[in-house]
């Protein structure tokens, strides 16, 4: 049986400022715990051995989904289930519902949070593909203030993000794009498993031309979960099957998957192309200008 290594302290933060103060007090050996559904498994495997845990589950200030100007703002402590059920997110981007429906299982989705997903930075994290596709940004706070970091600069690599010691991710922001269509495609070995490969896209079609688009890929070794060359190719072109296929091929070309128990690298590359194509097709179909 696996049980976490001894933990010296557990505290419950009462506000974002308090969480930051606690992080500073305990130093680099402290970790925030949100849903705990990535961190506790890592602690059971002893891949993570924090000295102190600072629980942010009580921070109501991080639990809302709202529109601010031309952005949708999702608080760090919003749970997967709330994203799945949100009419606001669905209205702007159906990709939120499609993506959440294939993240883990309903019981895990009751606990896992948006902030925890981004900060875990697992190379297979589905929300990272979504965030990169939509070119969202994250807001990080420390004792001196806040800064906004584009999603495509947020991850340094597997399990590494811009969140430093004494810092907390407070919200994730997504630009609103009127008329955008969006979709999510994932292949998994069984229900609730991490992706073999997954792809999320959005497309805005205006006057028969792709005005804007985004492609995000998880589990296939795409740097920052994206392949900008494929997007650049498609923008300004007609969304024909031929052009979508070319963009999908370019997206797959930009991936560098590794072979593991979920499949060989060439199969994952094949999936990257096929899933990109399927997601693009459906995004084009649902774009209001199409």
């Amino acid at each position, binding site marked *: *049986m*696996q*049980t*976490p*290594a*001894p*933990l*010296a*302290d*557990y505290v*419950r933060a009462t506000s974002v400022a308090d969480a930051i103060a606690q992080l500073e007090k305990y130093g680099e050996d402290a970790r925030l*715990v949100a849903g*705990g*559904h990535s961190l*506790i*498994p890592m*602690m*059971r495997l002893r891949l993570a051995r924090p000295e102190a*845990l600072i*629980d942010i*589950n009580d921070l109501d200030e991080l639990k809302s989904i709202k529109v601010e100007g031309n952005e949708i703002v999702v608080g760090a402590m919003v749970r997967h289930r709330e994203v799945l059920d949100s009419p606001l997110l669905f209205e702007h981007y159906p990709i939120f519902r499609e993506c959440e429906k294939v993240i*883990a*299982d*309903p*019981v*895990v989705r*009751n*606990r896992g949070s948006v902030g925890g997903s981004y900060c875990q930075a697992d190379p297979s994290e589905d929300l990272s593909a979504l965030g990169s596709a939509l070119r969202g940004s994250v807001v990080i706070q420390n004792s001196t203030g806040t800064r906004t970091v584009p999603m495509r600069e947020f991850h340094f690599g597997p399990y590494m993000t811009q969140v430093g010691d004494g810092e907390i991710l407070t919200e994730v922001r997504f630009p609103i794009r009127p008329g955008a269509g969006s979709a999510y495609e994932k292949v998994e070995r069984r*229900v*609730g498993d991490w992706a073999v490969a997954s792809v999320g896209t959005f497309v805005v079609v205006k006057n028969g031309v792709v005005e804007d688009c985004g492609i995000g890929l998880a589990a296939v070794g795409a740097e920052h979960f994206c392949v900008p060359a494929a997007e650049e190719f498609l923008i300004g072109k007609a969304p024909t099957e031929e052009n979508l296929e070319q963009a999908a091929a370019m997206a797959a070309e930009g991936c560098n998957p590794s072979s593991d128990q979920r499949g060989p690298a060439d199969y994952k590359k094949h999936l990257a192309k096929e899933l990109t194509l399927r997601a693009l097709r459906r995004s084009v179909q649902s774009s209001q200008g199409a």
Partner: protein
Amino acid sequence: MRFVVPSNQAKEPDMQVTMTINGESVTKECEPRTLLVHFIRDIVGLRGTHWGCDTSNCGTCVLWVDGEPVKSCTILAAMADGREVRTVEGLEQNGQLDPIQEGFRECHGLQCGFCTPGMMMTGRWILDNNPNPSEEEIREGISGQLCRCTGYHNIVKSIQWAAEHPAENEVKA
């Protein structure tokens, strides 16, 4: 056999946790690292909640925290401090089985019974949110839980039976 949480260090439990379990306030000592499933089983002594894997996949440990099903092997007891917990022992009200329990009995919803506590806690919650779920909704609802015996068919039927036989006094998630 009683399972004892191994400790690398001969160390006294060093925190006090208080939670409401099945309507009663319970205060016990544990270590900050103690998982909720072990707290409930080994420290509080309620063995109805099972523990079946180290990977958060099997779902036999599911209980409710503040009315929502949670895999209790994937949160700490400390994280449930001050919260309201309900386990399979708390489904029965005044000596009367909950319809979900009756359903499993009526429809042969268990064989070895290992997955059953988690299945019933999730099943009850599915019905509290959606009194008339479709078969597909039930299958989706329990998709984070494994059963090695029944092939799920009779589990789905048991939950459907409970949907058709609501009781006045059932606990609500």
